């Protein structure tokens, strides 16, 4: 099968016999009639830039119908179908309107990462800022306005969109999602994108149901520029400096681009959250001749930040702020965050762009990426839980002593020291333990900072072809091979020693939780039986150490047919995935299946999609799309307890997705609108959560299989130009996203104190978490290079992420509820929590200047959530624990995440 995958489904056409044409024209500003320099003009695979007087020339344009696209910065892009029926055509002036939607340059995706009690939390959730520039009013609103509130379009998370960088997929093969932080800060050098939202056809890959994006860093496609940007804000980071240089294509066929950025904050919007991010990108292109171009790009964004943790409403109320962050504490008078993240995942891509004829373009990419994703957090051994908002430390834990309860409430709200991490105490406890080292029970440090690292490397080879077969038919296809390996392990980062005790403390690599549950059993407690009772120091690996390998091969093909009143496309792909685990430690809880290479698991998946557009007239379109695909479960969700052993989840199977959407589009000069109805089924999904269970004193892996979801809804977006300067936007969606099955949950306790067990979870018809109905009303005013935007936004039908345990038979049976209360009790335990509705108002204002058509200055200022509403819950989760004895839901209340209050962002850029 593998071999078959490499066979392209398409053969190249030798080209048609018709003669090619030379096409020329001039691009001017529609308002000022002044020429636009450096605009990109594209017809199919052909591309050129306008010169100083806006003139362009494209040779070898095939005869027949062609779509000409003109793009320039600060200008609304232009698209027109022209008829090529002569060998030399001058199409005259192309007048472009000014773009009032100058990109805001706000890194939506980077904001407001809040962590829960879960392991393996990546970036994700929010939609990328790149969709800001989408032409679809609804998609733009959903991404830009609702993205920061963790709204997901159609309820799809980021793993249902495909992202390519210069033609290579950048999706994390283990997690199935894309980490946007890979190119964070490189806004100007990743601006050239080819993207679509939802189901559509693309030129660079099969895509996915949420859409697809290909980011290009090919220097010649960037206008010649020197650009400096400075930004000031009060969100995750406070300041940003970006510099980008692009040379344009010089006479010798060389083009260069360089970009560098730094974003930083000593403390962001939330206490204790520092931010320090650098980014770099370099790209070089050599155009050998009309047929061959070579591009080499490399980029990375080393980013370190202090994280915020969600907490319970009780803790927020006592602390007096919904942005209370339990992660930090004072150490020597300075705020130290116990949970930090460092990410640096550079990527190098070499591209070969081959244009053998005017009808054919073949883009080949060879990519290598590597790097580290590191999360640091506290760990402790035979000591009390150091988290200040640990539930036993809160007043609600005291139920039988009102006096004590109010005392604790008083000190909690009165003393910052009480509700933050007490570093001095942790150091002191370690020191005392060290002094008592000769006593048997005190062999090692009690507290430390551990560093959970995922180090990966990946090789990818991909090749895509686009070929114009006839005037009406375009064929596209490609293949990609990827080899990925990630090493998961823990390092001892800091044993919290006093300065003069450096090197004196140590940590024995055994599972303290197993130690408690299996006293006297010396082998079961070992994390590595090959190195039993190993004494570790700072910098040593401990706990777990294993590799996940993921190999994949992917081929895709697509045909697109374009006629005057009808467009149609159909595409297919086949993906082969193979993954396995290699254990580098022999775990005492699974001596037989933890060390060495596991069996290989492989899946063969495929997808089919098709769509049609009927142009009822130039103003009315009817669009229908459909997709059926199977998706291999991500390796991350496939191993039941990967840190311990290589057991796969029972009945692991591919996810089945089928979806259809129907849209009606109206386009007039002053009015455009789109209404879409969609219905999506996602069947046989597998999920896995890992979290710390403080009753079992162990990490617990919670897997669910046979998770079926149905997501359906209506989306609407429209824009009305009331005058040339003033537009009104209205966008919104109403969805009904539900679970439609009763999944099977399997619980695997890492310390082995309980055998793995399965149960049915009763969540049929439960709502998926997140907002399911949103609406936005906006005004846009644009005159003389000033622009002004105002939006009123509303989110509703929002639900909290729930704890499946509370929807199991065990949660509601085996009790002594009375006849008159049991229905209420069942309801209390199983009811799904609705998040309060939220309204925000955002404003932005901007101005751009052009001086001598050489210097461009752009200034914009935006205020988010101008009403400073600090009560907006963007999400949260019910704790994964449940009091099965007393069946009270209040013992482990949910944790919430709040949207920032009023924020501002000032952006100034200067370009030559």
């Amino acid at each position: 099968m593998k071999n078959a995958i490499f066979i392209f489904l398409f053969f190249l056409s030798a080209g048609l016999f018709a003669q090619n044409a030379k096409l020329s024209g001039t691009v001017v500003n529609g308002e000022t009639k002044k020429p636009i320099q450096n605009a990109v003009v594209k017809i199919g695979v052909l591309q050129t830039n306008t010169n100083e007087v806006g003139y362009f020339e494209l040779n070898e344009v095939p005869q027949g119908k062609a779509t000409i696209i003109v793009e320039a910065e600060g200008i609304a892009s232009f698209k027109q179908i022209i008829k090529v029926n002569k060998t030399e055509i001058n199409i005259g002036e192309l007048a472009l309107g000014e773009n009032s939607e100058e990109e805001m340059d706000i890194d939506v995706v980077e904001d407001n990462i809040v962590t829960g009690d879960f392991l393996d939390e990546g970036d994700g959730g929010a939609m990328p800022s790149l969709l800001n520039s989408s032409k679809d009013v609804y998609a733009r609103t959903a991404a830009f306005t609702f993205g920061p509130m963790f709204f997901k379009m159609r309820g799809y998370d980021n793993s249902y969109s495909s992202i390519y960088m210069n033609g290579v997929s950048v999706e994390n093969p283990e997690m199935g999602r894309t980490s946007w932080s890979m190119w964070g800060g490189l806004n100007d050098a990743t601006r050239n994108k080819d993207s679509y939202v939802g189901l559509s056809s693309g030129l660079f890959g099969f895509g996915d149901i949420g859409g697809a994006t290909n980011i290009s860093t090919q220097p010649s496609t960037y206008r010649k520029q020197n650009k400096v940007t400075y930004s000031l804000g009060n969100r995750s980071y406070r300041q940003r400096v970006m510099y980008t240089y692009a040379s344009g294509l010089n006479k010798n066929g060389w083009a260069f681009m360089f970009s560098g950025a730094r974003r930083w904050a000593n403390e962001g919007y939330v206490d204790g959250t520092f931010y320090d991010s650098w980014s770099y990108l370099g790209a070089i292109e050599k155009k050998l001749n009309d047929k061959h171009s070579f591009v080499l790009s490399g980029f990375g964004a080393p980013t370190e930040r202090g994280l915020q943790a969600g907490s319970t409403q009780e803790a927020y109320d006592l602390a007096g702020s919904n942005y209370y962050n339990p992660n930090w504490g004072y150490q020597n008078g300075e705020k130290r965050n116990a949970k930090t993240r460092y990410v640096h995942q550079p990527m190098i891509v070499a591209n070969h762009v081959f244009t053998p004829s005017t009808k054919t373009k073949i883009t080949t990419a060879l990519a290598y990426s590597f790097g580290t994703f590191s999360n640091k957090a506290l760990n402790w051994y035979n000591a009390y839980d150091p988290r200040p908002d640990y539930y036993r430390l809160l007043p609600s834990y005291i139920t039988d002593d009102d006096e004590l309860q109010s005392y604790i409430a008083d000190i909690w709200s009165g003393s910052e020291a009480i509700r933050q991490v007490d570093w001095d105490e942790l150091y002191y406890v370690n020191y005392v333990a060290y002094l008592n080292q000769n006593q048997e029970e005190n062999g090692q440090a009690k507290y430390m900072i551990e560093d959970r690292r995922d180090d990966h490397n990946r090789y990818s080879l991909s090749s895509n072809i686009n070929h114009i077969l006839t005037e009406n038919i375009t064929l596209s296809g490609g293949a990609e091979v990827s080899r990925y390996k990630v090493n998961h392990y823990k390092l001892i980062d800091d044993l919290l020693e006093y300065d003069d005790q450096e090197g004196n403390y140590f940590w024995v690599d055994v599972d303290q939780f197993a130690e408690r549950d299996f006293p006297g059993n010396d082998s079961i407690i070992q994390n590595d039986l090959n190195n039993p009772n190993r004494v570790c120091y700072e910098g040593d690996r401990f706990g777990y150490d294993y590799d996940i390998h993921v190999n994949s091969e992917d081929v895709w093909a697509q045909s697109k047919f374009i006629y005057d009143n009808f467009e149609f496309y159909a595409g297919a792909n086949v993906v082969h995935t193979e993954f396995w685990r290699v254990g580098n430690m022999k775990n005492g809880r699974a001596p037989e299946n933890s060390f060495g290479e596991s069996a290989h698991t492989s899946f063969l998946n495929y997808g089919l999609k098709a769509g049609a557009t009927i142009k009822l007239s130039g103003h009315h379109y009817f669009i229908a799309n459909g997709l059926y695909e199977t998706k291999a479960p991500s390796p991350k969700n496939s191993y039941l307890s990967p840190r311990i052993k290589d057991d796969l989840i029972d009945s692991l199977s591919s996810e089945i997705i089928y979806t259809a959407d129907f849209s009606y589009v109206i386009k007039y000069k002053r009015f455009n609108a789109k209404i879409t109805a969609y219905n999506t089924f996602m069947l046989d999904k597998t999920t896995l959560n890992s979290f710390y269970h403080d009753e079992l004193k162990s990490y617990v892996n919670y897997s669910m299989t046979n998770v079926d979801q149905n997501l359906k809804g209506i989306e609407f977006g429209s824009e009305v130009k009331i005058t040339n300067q003033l537009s009104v936007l209205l966008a919104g969606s109403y969805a009904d996203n539900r679970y439609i099955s009763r999944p099977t949950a399997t619980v695997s306790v890492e310390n082995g104190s309980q055998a793995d067990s399965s149960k049915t979870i009763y969540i049929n018809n439960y709502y998926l978490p997140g907002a399911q109905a949103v609406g936005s009303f906006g005004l846009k005013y644009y005159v003389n290079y000033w622009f002004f935007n105002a939006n009123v936004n509303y989110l509703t039908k929002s639900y909290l992420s729930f704890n499946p345990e509370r929807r199991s038979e065990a949660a509601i049976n085996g009790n002594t509820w009375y006849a008159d209360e049991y229905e209420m009790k069942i309801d209390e335990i199983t009811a799904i929590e609705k998040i309060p509705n939220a309204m925000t108002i955002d404003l932005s204002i901007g101005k751009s200047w052009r001086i001598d058509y050489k210097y461009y200055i752009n200034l914009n200022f935006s205020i988010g959530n101008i009403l400073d509403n600090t009560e907006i819950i963007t999400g949260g989760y019910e704790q994964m624990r449940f009091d099965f004895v007393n069946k009270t839901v209040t013992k482990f209340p949910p944790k919430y995440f709040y949207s920032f209050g009023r924020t501002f962002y000032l952006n100034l850029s200067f370009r030559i």
Partner: protein
Amino acid sequence: MKLQIIFLIFTISLGILTLSSCKELELDTPPYHIPEADTSGGTMITIEQLKNLPPSPLPSPGIYLIDSNYFVKGIITANDESGNIYKKLYMQDSTGGIVLSIDAKDMYLKYPIGQTVYLNCKGFYLGNSYGIPQFGSVFEGGPGRIISDKIDTIVMLDGLPDLSFIPDPKTVVGASGFSTSDLSKLVKITNVSFQEAGTNLFANPGESYPERTVVDANGNTMVLSNSSYATFANDTLPEGTGDITGILSTYNSEYRLYIRDIDDIQMYTSILAEYFGTEPSGWDKKSISGDAAWIFNSTDLTMKINGWDGDGTGAGNDDYLVSASFDLSTAVNPILSFSSRRRFADTETEPMAVYITTDYTGDASTTSWTKLSATFDLNTTSSFTGWVSSGEINLSEYSGSDVRIAFRYKSSSDGNGSASFWDIDNVSIVDK
């Protein structure tokens, strides 16, 4: 244009169709198992019939094997939740109560009070344990506990527990009035006080047979048998007067009461307790006419009044004894009671009456009084024959007010030489 409208309508209706079903969808809930007892093939009998199965009352210790397929339906009235009852459940139907002797702990988790159960009798024994019929098994030839890891096949659950299923306890005023047919039933005694209130615990650590006596106003006693393992063992015996609910039992032909939990003791809240140990402060005396007056009787510790002037020629008397003001603002069900005793006759038709007011002017003669209905001593002989209780006088219509009560004494003014002599004592108002 028509086509466009058709497509627009088509899209919108698809959208509506897509969402239309969502209203009726019910959120899932896990199955909830309501127990159902299987009594097929058996014969239903009552608790009374069960107790009467042995040919004649069994001599103690004695046992009787039930070898027929009998089922008995009843409601659990007491279990081991507080630890005061140990390895026993009590069940009751309209014909009586019975104790189930079972070798198990924490049975309350499965058999809450109010739970309907069916006893699957066959193969088990009816025994006489210290005069109490019990359902159980055999131990060394005598009555013993049922030992089984499948108790729920012998005491079968049926439906959900419901406190309204619990039969109303037989209620007696004071601590007397029970018969052997009340054994193992839920009973309630009212108006009783602990003899060692405020000084002793329900059970001292290690105490073998902690027994605590309660006494009613008439001196009748009842003994509470407690366990030193009970959750309330270390509680001090509460002061005051109140009601006690519990399971009636017996030991050496004396009744014993097992309370199920501390909540079974409902002490009344005392609003006024005037026993006239000293001259009461805040009380007013007002003589409207005559020479007699209310006097503090420091010998008997009562308030007394005597209209007899020594020669029988005196004029009639009319005298108020007005209580201090007391606050009924938080009382829900305030009950007034007092004791009276009298000697000698009087032609006055109402020589003693009790009144109430919410609006005392400071002068009984100008105050508007409402008469309360009370029982007074009717003795007309020359010597006292004993105290008579007033009965419970419900003051709930005065809840929320500051009130005073007054005792009004009258003696005749006809000069024929008669006047009654009164003592008033134990004036109390409690919130029950």
